[in-house]
């Protein structure tokens, strides 16, 4: 049974293997437009949000780096604060089916309720199309797009690249800093940082 399963995995890996072009998502450039479906079945287009700040947050509920920000309530707090200030917050799940962090729409809805999550929407991206479009590397990996559609931040959530919940307090949150600066008309002082976390569990 195990052998047969292994054989199946090898064959299916070979079948789906191909090149997923990673597009540039450089701070200062136009953010690539996308269309994605959320956990409730609603379709979201980036261009629909022109005129608003948009945050993209790559997530994987099984990843200890992501868990650091959810078990501490940090991510939910950021989602509440910034959505209440008119920011569109899109959590993205790029884990492929069968990989850590994959969830169906109903599963993700139940999970958001359980953890008291508050993004504008959770986008399901099991094919990794959106992930590769932005070249998301880790969970978490954060992007901010300004009302003109320019990518103004690409990087880590904060300056403590660990899984330790105790590190949330006292960390400099790069997303909040960038949003505070951008929403008050300043340019973002730190437009890129090295994202930290688990690798995004893309389809092989």
């Amino acid at each position, binding site marked *: 049974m195990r052998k047969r399963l292994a054989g199946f995995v090898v064959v299916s890996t070979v079948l789906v293997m191909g090149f997923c072009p990673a597009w540039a998502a450089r701070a200062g450039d136009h953010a690539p437009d996308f269309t994605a479906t959320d956990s409730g079945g609603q379709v979201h287009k980036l261009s629909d949000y022109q005129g608003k700040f948009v945050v993209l947050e790559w997530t994987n509920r099984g990843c200890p780096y992501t868990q650091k920000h959810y078990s501490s309530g940090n991510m939910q707090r950021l989602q509440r604060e910034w959505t209440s200030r008119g920011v569109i917050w899109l959590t993205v799940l790029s884990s492929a089916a069968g990989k850590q962090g994959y969830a169906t729409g109903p599963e993700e809805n139940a999970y958001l309720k359980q953890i008291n999550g508050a993004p504008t929407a959770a986008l399901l991206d099991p094919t990794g199309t959106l992930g590769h479009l932005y070249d998301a590397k880790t969970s978490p990996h954060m992007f901010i797009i300004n009302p003109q559609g320019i990518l103004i931040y*690409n990087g880590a959530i904060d300056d403590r690249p660990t899984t330790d919940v105790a590190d949330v307090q006292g960390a400099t949150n790069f997303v909040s800093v960038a949003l505070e600066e951008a929403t008050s008309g300043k340019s973002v002082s730190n437009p890129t940082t090295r994202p930290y976390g*688990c*690798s995004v569990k893309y389809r092989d």
Partner: protein
Amino acid sequence: MSQWVRSLAVTRMLSRLPLSRLNCNLAGRKVVKFYMFPVHRMRLALLAAGSLLAFTNQLCSQAPESHVKIELIPENTTLQAHKTFRVGLLFRLDPGWHIYWRNPGDAGEPPRVQWELPPGFVSGPILWPQPVRLGTGSVVDYGYENQVLLMAPVEAPAPPAASSTQGIGADVKYIVCREMCIPGKAHVTLSSPSSAQQSSAWRQLFEQTRAQIPRSAPTTWQFSAKSDPGYFNLFVRTASKVNAVTFFPLEAGQIDNSAPQGFASTANGFRLKLKKSDLLVKPVATLKGLLVFGPDHAFEIVVPVAPR
């Protein structure tokens, strides 16, 4: 409540248990699986459920799945005053699992070590062996699989007491990953070899690891680097022909870890074309990294980058 309904409730309760409870790793090797059978008598079901849980909990708490074993070993067992000796953290990983290099690449983080030393002893920085590239897709990391020895020099005071290595230990924080990542912590104290055989095996391990530590490039080699749109071009003048090389950046966010590296032989050496990272928004003054030519063959380089 009818007996049927109650036993159904028990079965449902059992089926809701997290999988890890019922499928746990024993002694790091054997996987113990527990299968549930339909139970028709409620008392029997409760009893079975209770003892099953107690049993599996006991097993799991005794042998958590860490996927790595860490030991702190000495290179030598005899100390000399004012002499530097080496200790090493030996990470033995389950197949497919890895830990990270000092620059972990796109994901993960390197192990962090807090040394515990007896008075008068001084430790130096970790000597990182040359890593391997991990991952083939758009996320590429640098790290170690199977087994790695992270050596560190320790200087003994004068005169060292006969038993003074006994107080040497380390607190290690690490993350070990395969398809998933598991953070871990370990407190280790310096092991003593149990036999002359083990002592020589350890010495050999240090010897092998020493060969994996990047060295300085030969003084006859010449390096230059140029910043071009989208790429860095690294030119190396060598004494002999080079057939293949991989660059491992020491600084995060300079080059695109997952991009193929364009290698080309030149008349007197080679050129390496390295794609710039999307995260790079400021000019880079120097390229720092390893040139890895093969097993036990790596040079650490720092090359000033000429602007366009």
